[in-house]
């Protein structure tokens, strides 16, 4: 007989949800925890910085910006793994002779007709000897 009364009971809950807004665009991802939302935002910041670095690198690659962005997000999403791989790498590009040698890859490569396959094989033993 009391079932009629029960139906009238309304339970109201206030749920706080966090969304990440970047460049004025609200991302699909919704977080229930502000910490999580902040962490996600930081990851996307890192991705932005990575793609800027890659673009500034002026690499001789045919990846458009959208692909570079996706790769950057992938790398940032796997940040700890990437850091583990790169840990212990010394900065050899700036100060060492090898670095200077390796930098003008573009100018070295251009006259070669089919550099793609040779390159990987060439590099390693070439640097190793002496």
């Amino acid at each position, binding site marked *: 007989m009391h079932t009629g009364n029960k139906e009238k009971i309304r339970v109201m809950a206030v749920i706080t949800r966090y969304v990440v807004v970047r460049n004025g665009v609200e991302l699909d991802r919704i977080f229930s925890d502000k910490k999580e939302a902040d962490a996600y935002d930081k990851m996307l910041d890192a991705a932005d*910085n990575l793609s800027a670095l890659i673009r500034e690198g002026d690499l001789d*690659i045919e990846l458009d910006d959208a692909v570079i962005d996706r*790769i950057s997000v992938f790398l940032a999403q796997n940040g700890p793994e990437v850091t583990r791989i*790169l840990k212990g790498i010394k900065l050899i590009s700036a100060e060492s002779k090898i670095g200077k040698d390796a930098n003008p890859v573009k100018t070295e490569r251009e006259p070669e007709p089919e550099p793609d396959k040779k390159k990987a094989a060439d590099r390693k033993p070439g640097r190793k000897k002496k």
Partner: protein
Amino acid sequence: MVGISKKEADAFDKMLDAAADLAHLIEQSGIEMDEFDLEELSIFLARNGPMICRILKPVKRSWGWSDP
């Protein structure tokens, strides 16, 4: 290739190893790119390892892989 110390050669080797690991990781993303671009990019990232680590420092955990 004159004047490269063993130390430098080892460092370079280490960098190339890291580049190979990175290439392997990036391949798992399923993002389509040609082999040459992947190698070029991986080597660039490995050469800039310290910088990349600095950028990724605020990222404390993995997020799996999803295109946002």
